[in-house]
């Protein structure tokens, strides 16, 4: 098991390096530090000297990938890539371009509000999806199934912006049940969390139910289900024991990969509901064109995705006896 985990982590290394190089190329080569300086300094203040000063202050005064002026190891180390991107590999995110804040500290602090929103959304959402999907599969071919499918397709055809805006309008403004947006610490966070969670569940439930229903129905068509029925098992045991445990395998691919992402929060939700989480942080950075933050967040997102892939593989071995640690 341990050897398997280590091997799986080793597989992730080339991908992480690939991501690192790709983001560096995007942020240092296609969009040069000069461009960044111009954007941040503003159109009025641009002089070649101001740009140089800005680059010096923020550590961008090197060539992008290869420094021909230096000798030995410095050819590689005295570059923006090595100074700015390589430290990401050991989670040194550096400081932001605009306000010189410590990005790493910011991330550690902001991931908790993100988690408070995304974790309940995810946990309740997946549970509801699975529950309704199993119901539809159980009543397959009946009116309940038909109505459920229709409801699913209608729900997933509605823009999530609609859920957010009407949710805020109805619950926040008209009924005054919850605050429209905002956040607080500790126990007071609860009243701010409810509305985003409801909206988050609503916007995902249509697609979720339909997807899991397909998974269940495919599972129900298999030979072993016929065997289980021929044994005389009641339909509930056939579905909720035999079929469900098998259906967990495709469900896991879909679910586990997104668990690490819960730290990341949701870009849309957090902006609309003014949650001071990582999603909000990213959007703010985008709008203020702070590339150091955007770069860190892109990299962090990739890391979380890769972590999700590894988690998925590991969870397979727990559910599917056919998968061995190889």
């Amino acid at each position: 098991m341990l050897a398997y985990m280590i091997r799986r982590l080793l597989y992730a290394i080339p991908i992480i390096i690939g991501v690192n190089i790709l983001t560096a190329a995007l942020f240092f080569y296609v969009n040069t530090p000069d461009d960044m300086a111009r954007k941040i300094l503003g159109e009025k203040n641009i002089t070649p000297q101001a740009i140089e000063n800005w680059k010096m202050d923020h550590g961008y005064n090197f060539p992008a990938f290869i420094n021909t002026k230096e000798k030995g190891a410095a050819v590689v180390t005295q570059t923006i890539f090595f100074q700015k991107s390589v430290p990401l590999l050991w989670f040194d995110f550096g400081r932001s371009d605009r306000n010189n804040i410590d990005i790493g500290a910011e991330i550690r602090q902001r991931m908790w509000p993100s988690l408070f929103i995304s974790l309940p959304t995810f946990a309740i959402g997946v549970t509801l999806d699975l529950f309704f999907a199993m119901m539809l599969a159980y009543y397959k071919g009946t009116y309940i199934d038909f109505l459920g499918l229709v409801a699913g397709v209608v729900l997933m055809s509605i823009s999530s912006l609609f859920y957010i805006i009407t949710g805020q309008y109805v619950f926040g403004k008209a009924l005054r049940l919850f605050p429209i947006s905002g956040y607080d610490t500790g126990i007071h966070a609860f009243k701010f969390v409810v509305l985003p969670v409801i909206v988050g569940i609503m916007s995902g439930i249509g697609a979720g139910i339909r997807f899991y229903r397909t998974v269940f129905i495919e599972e129900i068509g298999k030979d072993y289900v016929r065997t289980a029925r021929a044994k005389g098992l009641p339909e509930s045991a056939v579905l909720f024991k035999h079929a469900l445990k098998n259906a967990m395998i495709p469900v896991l691919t879909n679910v586990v990969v997104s668990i690490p992402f819960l730290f990341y929060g949701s870009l849309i939700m957090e902006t609309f509901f003014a949650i001071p989480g990582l999603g909000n942080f990213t959007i703010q950075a985008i709008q203020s064109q702070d590339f150091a933050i955007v770069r860190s967040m892109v990299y962090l997102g990739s890391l979380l995705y890769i972590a999700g892939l590894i988690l998925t593989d590991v969870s397979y071995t727990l559910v599917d006896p056919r998968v061995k640690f190889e």
Partner: protein
Amino acid sequence: MPVIFATDLIVYILFAGAFYFMLAVRKEGMLKEAWKDVKKRRLAMVCLSVLAAYSIVALADSIRWRDPIRNESGRPALSPSGGYIYSAEALSILDRALSRIRLENEKTYSAPLSSHLYVKESIELPDGRVAREYPPLRYPGAHILGTDKVGNDILYIALKGVRTGMVIGAGTTIVIIPFAIFFGVIAGYYGGLIDDIVQYLYTTLASIPGVLLIVAFMLLFGSSGYQGGLIRQSDLVLQAFVPNDRLFWLCLILGVTSWTDLCRLIRGETLKLRELEYVQASRAFGVSRRGIIYRHIVPNLMHLILITFVLQFSGLVLAEAILSYIGIGVGPQMWSWGNMINTARLELSMEPVVWWNLLASFVFMFGLVLPANIFGDAVRDALDPRLRFK
């Protein structure tokens, strides 16, 4: 003088593709059977007609030309060299057909079908007194869905949004199909090192969060529009062609982020097809690899591509609205439902509430996405061999 945007090509390709499938359905066996299946579902056919209507609006909005400027006498103005002078604005067929509601602007908000503005203004009454009143509209009752803040007709704006939605929904997949097929097929068919490289490539790309990749790209290309680079207007022989279309780049970038799924799907299918007996038979005839890929592999991937196309369509239309809201979408100067929602959001907090702008955009979007989802299901059910032979 005709003007072709890069995104117009996407609409043309969409129509060419639809036409191709129409011909293929008449001719070929398997597709014909699948089509029969789809045709049996009345709901799917209703949805198809709705989609067709949207497509026609998009097409009408994608054929455009610039008119010569006319002088006071009504004759075309001539430049010193003797040529026509064209107006800077290229109007599409749709613009021309809707010229009445396009041009009949009001001052500011007005509710659907109302005769007065929605905002009170100080009006000088005939007797000289000044009162705060709802002023009458210039064109009372003409605005079926009302007008927005600057008095534009909402129906017109929503209809203009159709093209944007269709281009995003269809264009993104169209742009990536050639790449996905190419990489998926060579990875699946040749295997070995090529397979490893392609797999590494798409795992790496897939691991970068899609939204952030889009963000990064859009930042580089600027929030106001494409800032030149890969193709310049002056590089083109065809002067009528406009490549620096922000919408086009958005399609391309959305394509890059959603490319990996289709590529992985195609790779897997190719691995399966490669071992099938008809491919083996073809190899036994000494047919070259390229011949096999061209004749046996790619045609048998078409159902996957069609399924992906229809299933991705609705998701992409919805994504456009979200991206436009974050400010990395099609850009504020473009008509789109996302922009409509973005502006309408603030109108909800006004007193009294301006609701028609928001409602119109959601209804138009829903009217495209719901039929696309239902029709997509029907297409998948008819084409997916796993479902088909059950």
